[in-house]
């Protein structure tokens, strides 16, 4: 079991700087998720850790061992880094059977035949493919191929498992199922996992700790999923982890008003000074009801999505999204129609400087 430490890492392709002075730490035995938009350099980072790319500057340590160091020119090749890796496109070798695919790392490691067979069998079983050992990848579904890749990455009991968007090519149901399985495997085997994805749902579900990277490769915040979701460090993290609503709030003569300068803000008080602020909240943080206290709004669109009703509500010239649990809405007779006036109450909000309003709806 080994953690990963990245210190001052820099990597550029020609003039394109992917990383400059990146620091990151993955605690041994944890599942660490790196979440970021596509093109933010998270795959590059993964490849740098795996050793497929060389660092320009900075150090990468796996456990206590320096595997890459820009200053001294150390570059341990991928095969000597003791890692397991699962690729986005599975990368299962089409000319080898399931058994041969999974057994390959052991063959390379010159594990004795009996032990090799036993460990391969165990790894195949671990990912639920027992009985399919003799199949070729072309005879497997996408999900099964991904399991082969996972078994292959785990069979040599690596200190560190790297997962590069391994669930991207799977359909939604399978993705959810595999997500839990990967998490369960990681906990059972107690290995360190670094999981890279742009899918916030997977990231939140699987991570012990996670980091959110912005498009330029800078980590904006790291912590537990709950911390990041509940206390985002900035609007980027806030936006990235789910649907984000923003309203402008002004201090006018000591009272708080919305952008139109008239409607009074009726929610939690700001946590910061300033004449112009932005309040952010998620659709689920909004309670929309007919009449009563709260911010007045008009329902512009109501979409029944099954478990939830999704409202588009116009508040003081800005439209926001509000989601209401269908069951409760039905029971309490709070299903709103398009064009209906409503009142909005807030369960929780985040305060930001007004500048985030100009950043545009991401």
């Amino acid at each position, binding site marked *: 079991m080994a953690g990963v430490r990245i210190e001052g890492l820099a990597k550029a392709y020609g003039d394109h700087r992917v990383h400059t002075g990146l620091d990151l730490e993955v605690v041994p035995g944890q599942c660490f998720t790196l979440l970021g938009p596509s093109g933010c350099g998270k795959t590059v980072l993964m490849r740098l850790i*795996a*050793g*497929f790319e*060389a*660092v*320009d*500057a900075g150090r990468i340590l796996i456990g206590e061992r320096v595997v*890459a160091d*820009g*200053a001294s*020119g*150390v*570059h341990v*090749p*991928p*095969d*000597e880094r003791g*890692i*397991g*890796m699962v*690729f*986005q*496109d599975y*990368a*299962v*070798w*089409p*000319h080898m059977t399931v058994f041969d695919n999974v057994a*390959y*790392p052991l063959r*390379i*490691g010159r594990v004795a035949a009996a032990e090799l067979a036993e460990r391969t069998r165990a790894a195949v079983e671990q990912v639920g493919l027992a009985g399919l050992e003799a199949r070729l990848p072309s005879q497997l579904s996408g999900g099964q191929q991904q399991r082969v*890749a996972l078994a*292959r*990455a785990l069979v*040599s009991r690596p200190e560190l498992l*790297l997962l590069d968007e391994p669930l991207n090519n799977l359909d939604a149901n399978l993705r959810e199922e595999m997500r839990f399985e990967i998490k369960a495997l990681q906990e059972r085997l107690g290995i360190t996992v670094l999981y890279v994805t742009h899918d916030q749902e997977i990231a939140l579900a699987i991570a012990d700790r996670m980091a959110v990277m912005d498009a330029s490769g800078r980590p904006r915040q790291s912590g537990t999923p709950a911390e990041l979701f509940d206390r985002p460090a900035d609007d980027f993290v806030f936006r990235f982890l789910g649907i984000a609503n923003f309203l402008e709030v002004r201090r006018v003569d000591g009272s708080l008003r919305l952008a139109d300068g008239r409607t009074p803000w009726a929610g939690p008080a700001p946590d910061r000074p300033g004449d112009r602020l932005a309040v952010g909240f998620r659709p689920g943080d909004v309670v929309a009801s007919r009449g009563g206290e709260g911010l007045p709004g008009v329902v512009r669109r109501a979409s029944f999505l099954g478990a939830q009703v999704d409202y588009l509500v116009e508040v003081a010239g800005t439209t926001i999204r509000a989601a209401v649990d269908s069951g409760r809405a039905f029971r309490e007779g709070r299903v709103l129609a398009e064009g209906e006036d409503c009142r909005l109450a807030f369960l929780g909000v985040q305060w930001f400087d007004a500048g985030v309003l100009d950043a545009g709806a991401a």
Partner: protein
Amino acid sequence: MSAAAPRFGTAQVLFGLAVGILVIFVAVPVLLIFFNAFWVNGAFNVADVLKVLRQKDTYEALLNSLVLASGVTVTGTIVGTFFAWLVTRTDLPFKGAMKVLFLVPFMLPSFIGALAWKMLLSPRSGYINRFFQEVLGFDGPVFDIYTYGGIIGVETMYLFPFVFIQVCGALERMDPTLEESARISGADLFTITRRITIPLVLPSILSGALLIMLYSMAHFGTVAVLGIEAGIYNIPTLIYEKIHQSAGSFDSIRTGTVLATVLVVTAAFILWLQNRVLSRGRYQIIAGKSFRPTELKLRGLRYPLLAFCLAYIAFTIVLPTVTIFLVGGLKTYGLPLAAENFTWGNYRHILFEWQLTRDAIWNSITLGLAAALITMFAGVIISYVIVKMKVRGKGILEFLGMLPFSVPGSVIALGVILAWSGKFGVNLYNTVWIILVAYIARYMAFSLKANSAALEQVHDSLVEAARASGATMWQALRDVVVPLVRPGMLAAFFLIFLPALRELTVSVLLYGPTSRTIGVAIYTLNEDGETVYSAALAGIALVIIVTGEVVIKRFFKTASGS
């Protein structure tokens, strides 16, 4: 700058090897040609080049190459497009079998065909001419094969499949909804053909036509067999004439290099044009799957057209082939084709008694095997570096990798003469080794094509997965890359071995007393008037070639079936 010190590892070895092979085998010979053409007595000299080009035989050869290539391109394109349309878009009977038959000329060496046509249609002794005079009572010879028309006709028979294959492919892949939607819009079949079908397959037609042009420009055999008699020389035959007659004098080498330069430039231009045509046409025929296109009902013309196709095949494939075997069995050339004049003696003599022909067969087979093996391995290394590796200086390699595609055979031959005749310490002249070196350069393009296609199918992550599994670069290559590109390597092997068996253009410029190839032996025997032996050897060559093709087709079918 990168602080990680570049290690001298596998990547560098492969890169060095790839560059080395291409430079030594391809770049140096070609550069030596340019150097010799433009560099006189240590100075750059264009005036002299122009002087060479103004000589009568030189510019006549250039003109001839152009006229012949244009003629063959036009007729070959018409024939190829017509037959392609017939076997893909009409209800012609036995279409599948006809399609296979139309590809047969690809297997047959065109100079052997030329030889057969000479035996049939030469004004003095051609069997058909004699038949017309002796049986039908014509006064003089009716046909003369030693003409531009004759040469163009014979080359067309063997080159039209270039267009045929391309157009068949395009017509088969073309999404029929493109035509159907035109039909729904109210267009009749003629309008659809004119406005939809032809524009859509035009890139394929043009690309095939340019391939014919490229091939014909640089083609030696047919023009050598049929043209020299009437004083018709093209660039490759004039190079041959110059090199052979004056036994390597400086002037003849210079003329040769100037001609070769013209040939390289033309070939490069044609290839560039073809690339442009193909890249512009790429989007037009999008569907990769095979559809069943709407077929034109030929109605009353079905069987007449089938008869026409069969007659064409009988006339262009069966007749010349039969002629070769019959003449090869004659006791003396010129005797009537009657039972009492036939003997197995020629074949026996060639196969078991005559050192010259036995050497030739042995040389061709060993040269073919050696060239195919070496080029296959070299090609896979070079393709790997070009397709898969990220190394500095890869641009140079990509350029070098393009070179073999645009260097015609006679140019390669001339280049290796300049490079390997002792000027640089190694003298291979008059040995089989110089032919081997030339073959490697000549067939590198085939190997690069087959191997890069196979390598492009091997996704990078497959190799990286092996590295992450603990495999070194070599182990990953051995366990993942090589098994996956093996079909491409095999294809490269046969793509080289089979043409090498019947090669003439290169070896005719390089052969020595003991290093004749089958092609050279057939050609020189014919030149020396040993027509029956020449035909007998050609017959044996045909048997070897066709057997090879059939065995390999069968082999690939079972390999891809499993």
